């Protein structure tokens, strides 16, 4: 391990890798700060630009984008009360009141320091946990892994949108799209409709750019026609010198909130589908309950910003733990990062530690460097990011449409991918409008090949006999958890839809 670490550090601490991490964090921060844009969109758009890079440089760059995006989303939340990402909604609760009190620079600094602290803590947890978990995961067989995949998709469907049924349908659609191409066992073409371009399957980037980036632009265009495309800045109060700084004593007072947020973000981040939004809400609620002055929350409490931002950023590296340990993505951004691994010829999961330990340790070191770069970019670019968020959508969105076209073209170098991307953009628009979870859709697509392979192996191993599951307690446990998810979230929704059991009973009595 020490030898691998030494080689990895030699590869990471080079001008090229450090430069790409810096560029990645900067772009991520910029995209995170822009309202309406998010890091998943940025990852989808930037993936094709990494094809010519080495795997280590490409992944460090994309991880930088991911981390920068999570931290940058606080900027617009604090300054204009518009969260750059859904997970920064909680930051607006106290961040924006601080801005209105003339403490915007202090709030931005609290957001940045908390983000970096949460990020570093969770990255260290990732490094400590991923290796032992992967060692355990090597022993997981096909039957158990199939059950874990079924559970993951069911659980993500249950928690990622308003409707459980629509979430499941989205996941199944993703799995179905992944079956297009040559059958992995027989080599027979499947669902290719005569297109040779589809023999390798539907390109990941056509799906990712279409459903994440283009569909979002179509939604924004529609929203803009009904409102306007300009984010107005509040008339800010003049800031006193002491309100611009964050003293050491003030930072020390925030440490309990930061640790609380980091702990919540790390734990929630590991679980599939729950993600940053829930963790920042939970951390905020916990910090408010633990506070001696809970009445200040919602009116500009610095602890509120610290808890929300540390939890938000801690969930980013934590969500990579299942990717490294068992090859399972739990969120949109991690699904895309897993896609990046696959596009660069690597399969994330426990065997990656055996096949290319140097690369894995290199990525871990790159993550730590990215965390520190976050601090640098955030501090140096504070004034720049505060201005850039006021650029109108009428300028940003059309340029992103162009990036979508170029990005899709770069995947395969043909217009076929661009037209596919357009189709998925249009489909994604309707999915968003009709509340079909595109998170489950993309996760389903990324997991599709592994799901099929493991399921087929499981059917062969068990001889298609359900009773054979009794010999696989882990699989049984996860299948039971999946059934409970279906029962709990499905029936809950049915009851909600039908007005609730109580309402029905009352109706019968009447």
């Amino acid at each position, binding site marked *: 391990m020490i030898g691998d670490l030494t080689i990895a550090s030699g590869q990471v601490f080079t001008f090229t890798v450090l430069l790409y991490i810096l560029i990645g964090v900067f772009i991520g921060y910029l995209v995170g700060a822009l309202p309406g844009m998010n890091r998943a969109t940025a990852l989808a758009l930037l993936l094709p*630009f990494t*094809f*010519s890079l080495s795997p280590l440089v490409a992944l460090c760059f994309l991880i930088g984008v991911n981390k920068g995006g999570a931290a940058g989303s606080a900027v617009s939340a604090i300054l204009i009360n518009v969260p750059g990402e859904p997970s920064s909604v909680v930051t607006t609760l106290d961040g924006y009141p601080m801005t209105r009190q003339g403490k915007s620079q202090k709030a931005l600094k609290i957001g940045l320091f908390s983000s970096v602290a949460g990020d570093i803590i969770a990255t260290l947890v990732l490094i400590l946990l991923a290796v032992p978990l992967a060692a355990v995961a090597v022993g997981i067989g096909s039957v158990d892994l199939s059950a874990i995949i079924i559970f993951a998709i069911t659980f993500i469907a249950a928690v990622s949108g308003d409707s459980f*049924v*629509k979430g*499941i*349908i989205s996941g*199944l659609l993703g*799995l*179905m799209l992944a*079956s297009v191409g040559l*059958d992995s*066992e*027989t080599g*027979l*073409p*499947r*669902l*290719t409709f005569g297109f040779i371009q589809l023999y390798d399957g539907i390109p990941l980037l056509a799906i990712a750019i279409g459903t994440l980036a283009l569909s979002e632009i*179509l939604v924004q*265009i*529609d929203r*803009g*026609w009904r409102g306007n*495309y300009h984010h107005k800045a509040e008339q800010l109060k003049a800031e006193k010198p002491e309100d611009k700084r964050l003293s050491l004593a003030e930072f020390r007072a925030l440490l309990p909130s930061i640790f609380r947020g980091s702990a919540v973000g790390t734990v929630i981040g590991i679980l599939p589908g729950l993600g940053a939004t829930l963790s920042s809400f939970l951390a905020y609620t916990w910090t408010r309950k633990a506070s001696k002055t809970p009445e200040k929350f919602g009116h500009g409490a610095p602890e509120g910003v610290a808890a929300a931002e540390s939890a938000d950023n801690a969930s980013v590296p934590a969500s990579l733990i299942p990717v490294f340990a068992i090859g399972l993505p739990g969120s949109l951004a991690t699904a895309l990062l897993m896609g990046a691994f696959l596009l660069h010829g690597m399969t994330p999961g426990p065997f990656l530690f055996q096949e290319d330990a140097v690369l894995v340790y290199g990525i871990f070191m790159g993550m730590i460097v990215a965390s520190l770069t976050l601090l640098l970019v955030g501090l140096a670019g504070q004034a720049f990011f505060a201005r850039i968020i006021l650029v*109108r*959508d*009428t*300028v940003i*969105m*059309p*340029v992103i*449409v*162009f*990036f979508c*076209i*170029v990005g899709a*073209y*770069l995947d395969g*170098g043909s*217009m076929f991918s661009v037209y596919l991307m*357009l189709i998925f*953009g*249009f489909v994604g628009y*309707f999915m968003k*409008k*009709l*509340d079909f979870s595109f998170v489950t859709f993309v996760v389903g697509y990324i997991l599709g090949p592994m799901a099929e392979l493991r*399921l*087929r192996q499981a*059917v*062969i191993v068990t001889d298609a006999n359900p009773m054979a599951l009794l010999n696989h307690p882990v699989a049984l446990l996860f299948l039971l958890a999946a059934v409970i998810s279906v029962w709990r979230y*499905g029936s809950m*929704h*049915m009851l*909600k*839809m*039908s*007005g609730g059991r109580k*309402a029905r009973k009352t109706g019968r009595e009447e």
Partner: protein
Amino acid sequence: MRIADLISGSVLLAGSLLFLFVIIPAQVGEGKWYGLSPFFYPNLIAGGIAVFSLWLIVQAAMGNKAYKGREVPLSFWQIAIFLLSGLLILGGVIVVEHFGIWIGGPVTILAVMLLMGERRPLVLVPTAILPVVGIYTLVRFVLHAPLP
């Protein structure tokens, strides 16, 4: 939303049945296999989509009260804007395909900017040109990849 759920559930149910009985049997190549059939996995998934689509239809049919007050997801006006923006972007892609990104890029950016209501020439012109120059430089001279 209720009507939208009923329609989307019905479309998905019809689509999944079409896949199960027509498309999958017709779109899997002929050949021999010794393990599991290549039809197994797509059939399983299409069956799952059919079951859950039916669930969605039943849910929407039952949930008259729960849907009250929920916003209609797509109005006529929204569909019109979607079609207009979709057609403009499709037009842009066709121009890119036939005339390359030096013409297609600025045309697409300009079309979307105008659609979004941007009218200031000093913003329109540089926004349409600079990203194309930047991307061309990056892709051709740094990444050494082809562009249309």
